């Protein structure tokens, strides 16, 4: 495996990936424009790694080694020597396209450039790069530490070498990579979106109460979680955006049309667990 990983963006996903990589003995450079975000990420990873050592999951030496491999940078030029760079900045096509144009110009041409986008097109993100064949999707799932799946996305112009390297890298991190073509939502978000939206339609049409719907899916189908409690956990705004983005990319395909109730909830601040109210109320738990 390569020695130096570059991570662009120190948010939830970026720090999760950095955490995984240092534990796998890879030298990680995390770049973010915001120093506060970088510092917070460093503290969080330090805490998490020390906790692993306290619980005996890793030795104190492994913990010390992992933390010595984590570096933060506020200049993107410092990533120039990385062999693999993964980006998880805000889901905005213009920002990502510009970032990849910049990375393409300022890194060694053999480096693989990966994007952790969940809803944008890998092909579009690669469009301004001189070498689009090295741009690939590497979609992690939340929580990065425990979720076993990584979708490796082959854009229209992605080369086999970039795909192979990314598959190997995912396995090296202990994940199970699955290759997917570059269509809106890739595999999981694509297939699950109509399922989630249908559950919201059922609530809106008063076919059953949210608790009934979740119970029916668990008890009859054997699902670990019902769709509505899962949406509350992920955030109703996230699910609204996902469906909206897929409907746009499919030019108004009705299968992805968000349920109007979901928009009402997101607009009204009923975002799920994180706001204390979604399909269920979480006020008592505070």
């Amino acid at each position: 495996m390569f020695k130096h990983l570059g991570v662009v963006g120190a948010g939830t996903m970026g720090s999760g990936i950095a955490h995984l990589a240092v534990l796998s003995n890879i030298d990680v450079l995390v770049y973010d424009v915001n120093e506060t975000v970088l510092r917070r990420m460093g503290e969080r990873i330090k805490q998490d790694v020390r906790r692993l050592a306290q619980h005996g999951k890793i030795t104190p030496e492994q913990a010390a080694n992992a933390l010595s491999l984590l570096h933060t940078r506020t200049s993107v030029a410092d990533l120039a020597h990385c062999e693999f760079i993964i980006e998880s900045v805000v889901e905005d096509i213009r920002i990502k396209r510009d970032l990849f144009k910049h990375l393409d110009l300022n890194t060694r041409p053999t480096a693989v450039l990966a994007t952790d986008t969940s809803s944008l097109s890998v092909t579009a993100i690669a469009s301004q790069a001189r070498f689009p064949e090295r741009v690939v999707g590497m979609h992690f799932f939340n929580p990065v530490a425990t979720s076993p799946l990584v979708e490796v996305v082959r854009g229209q112009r992605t080369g086999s070498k970039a795909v192979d390297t990314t598959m190997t890298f995912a396995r090296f991190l202990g994940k199970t990579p699955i290759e997917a073509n570059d269509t809106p939502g890739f595999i999981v978000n694509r297939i699950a979106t109509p399922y989630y939206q249908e559950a919201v339609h059922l609530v809106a049409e008063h076919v059953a109460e949210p608790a009934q719907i979740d119970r029916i899916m668990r008890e009859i189908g054997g699902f670990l979680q019902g769709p509505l409690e899962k949406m509350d956990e992920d955030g109703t705004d996230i699910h609204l955006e996902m469906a909206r983005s897929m409907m746009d990319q499919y030019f108004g395909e009705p299968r992805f049309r968000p349920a109007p109730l979901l928009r009402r909830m997101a607009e009204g601040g009923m975002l799920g667990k994180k706001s204390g109210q979604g399909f269920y109320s979480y006020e008592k738990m505070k």
Partner: protein
Amino acid sequence: MAKKTPTASKRSKPAKRAPRQAPKTASKRGVLTKPSAVASVSSESVLLLGDERLVQEYQTLLTSNGFTVHTSIPRTGSKLSYAIECTNLDRTAKRERLTILDRVLSPDRVLLSSSVTVSATEQANWITHRNRLVGFGILPTLSQRPLVELAPTIHSPTEAVEQAAEFFARVGKQTEVVQDRVGLVFARTLCRLINEAAFALTEEIATPQDLDAALKMALQHPNGPIEWVERIGLDQVSALLKALESESGDARYRMAPLLHQMALSGEWWKR
């Protein structure tokens, strides 16, 4: 059950009705007065008609819970406690079977009918004793699950819903009462997942095996979408999607051409 309950909503209080034809029927109460309770509980008989797979599964379930199960009209003299219609595939056949069940089952007993592809309200209009029809959810391979969906119609008196719940309790199932809409909750939600997976396969996003693996890993689903089709059966999934599309007129239920072709050819994708 009275023959006419003008527009009794299912949530309204039950009207007082004539007691169940007491001594002659092999009702639970009558049977329990006999000395050997264990053996005699089993004497209640059920008439079961419908899709072959569903009839087989329910026959196993009911027999193991002590019911005597008939899958064709029993000879005169055997008194039925329950009648269950479980056809999802063929509307015409369903109507014929329901008419038979309505004729042979005493009017004071609940008539349970699958309302997965035809609403219970529509079915109630096919029969004479429409008040006693209560819809329920049934799909292949789920007969051992601990819960079942019940869909009373606008005509169903509380007593009918109670009889239905009591019946399912005796085969080890809890009930969840939902509104009478085609597909109920489970079938309707699940078929959206399956249909989208079929569209994704058409676009060759990934292999069928990878689709299944991805959903199971990322969302901890018990089966991947392709495995769901193999469990439930293409014929049932196809009937369900068609029913949802024609009932709602909404294009979001439009069946993936791949599913349609496979349903016609009787083949499933294997690579």
